[in-house]
Structures are given as structure tokens and as C-alpha cells.
């Protein structure tokens, strides 16, 4: 299960609870978790489906200047960057 917490929820906690939640986030982050990969990959797939283009093709098109960077493309790119960081 994906472990997530909202900024708004965190702000309601007392200091001790916040430290506990942050420790939980770090602990999950230290144990590379398959559900995070699935979450990120599903978001990438949604872009690939919508644009009928693979992420590799997107990167090539951006590099060659054939594809302009829009806000949606920037979001897609950020997901790819996040997946890359996640995989390290």
C-alpha cells in the first residue's frame, strides 16, 4: 500500500506526532517499495496513452526540438525524473 500524507494533515499534528510521521516517511523511503514504483509508472502510462507516444520517444523529440515543452509535458518529464531518482 502506498504510504502518503497530506501537508494539511501534517500541520494539524503536534510536534511529537509530526516527528513520528516524518520518521515513517523516511522509513518507507529507505525500503524501496514496489507500490511507489507502480504509482509512478501508472501516471507515466497515462501520459503515454494520452499522447500515443512512449516516454523514450518523448525524450528524443524534446532533445531534437521536435516537441515543445508544455506544462503537461513538464509534468510527464518530472514523473520520469522521479522514477529515475526512485530507481537509484
Amino acid at each position: 500500500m502506498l504510504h502518503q500524507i497530506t501537508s494539511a494533515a501534517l500541520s494539524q499534528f503536534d510536534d511529537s506526532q509530526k516527528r513520528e510521521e516524518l520518521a515513517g516517511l523516511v522509513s518507507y523511503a529507505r525500503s524501496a517499495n514496489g507500490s511507489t514504483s507502480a504509482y509512478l509508472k501508472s501516471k507515466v502510462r497515462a501520459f503515454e496513452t494520452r499522447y500515443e507516444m512512449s516516454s523514450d520517444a518523448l525524450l528524443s523529440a524534446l532533445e531534437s526540438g521536435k516537441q515543445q515543452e508544455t506544462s503537461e509535458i513538464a509534468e510527464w518529464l518530472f514523473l520520469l525524473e522521479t522514477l529515475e531518482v526512485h530507481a537509484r
Partner: protein
Amino acid sequence: MPAKHGLNRLNAYLQIHETVMERQLRNGFVVSDELVFTPIHNGILLEGDILCQGTIRLQVRKIIKILQGEGADALVQTVAYSYNALLPGIGNIFRYDSPHATHNKEHHVHRYNVLNGGVQFPIEWLTDEEQRPTLGEVIDELAAWCYANYDALAAM
């Protein structure tokens, strides 16, 4: 003096984030904080929207890398970000991005003439660390833009 975007303890990072959001919620420009923290491998993804006055939406994406340590005192640093401000259904106002691997390989900002057809101005390169805004500075810039264009926004 510590670097503007340097290392920080996760707990201290959160305190700064909360102070920024509380100030913006209190002064009324920010209407709702819908950001979510998601753990990724050795890092935390902060993503979601900040809803603002004038139906303005700020889409936030940050990768906060955990560099050392455990628990709330782990040392962290932002390694990638994208702050996209927009008027839904109309267009983008601006977007700050960290470098991309394939193009626009320096920190940069895209600005758009959103109230006059949405034409994009030339990209501005943020070569100095001081030019790269924090989330709080981005919200301040957006609030200033909103108030400067209040009449045009109200007439939409």
C-alpha cells in the same frame, strides 16, 4: 549564512514549509493546501496543488532527497522541482523548472502573457542560486501578480 537551497533536517524543512503555508493561508491569498508527501526510494515526492485567490492554481512538484540519517532529523535536500502557476481553462502564468536532461538544461522559468493570448516570453535562465525561488517566494510572486492584475481577473 546557509545556502538558500542547501541541506536541511527533514523536521526543519517541514517547519519552514508549514510556516510558509500558514502565513499564506492567514493572509488569504492561499485558499487550500492540497500537497501530498509520498516516499520514493531514499527520497520524498511533494506534489499537488495550492489553490489560490482568483481561481489561480499552483501545481507543485518537488523531489526531496534523503541524503543521510534516519527519522525526522534525516538530512534532506531538494534535487528537482517544478512550480507551475495557471489559470484553469485559460492558460499558464509561469513555471519554474529545475534542469531537464534533454533540453533546457539549466534552472529556468517560463513566463506567459496569459491575460493576452498566452504567448510565451523567452525563457529566463536562473544561473545563480539566489535567483531560484523557494516555494514561499513563488507564492509571494504569484500573489503579487494576482493583485497587480486584479481588475482583469475580476472581469473574466
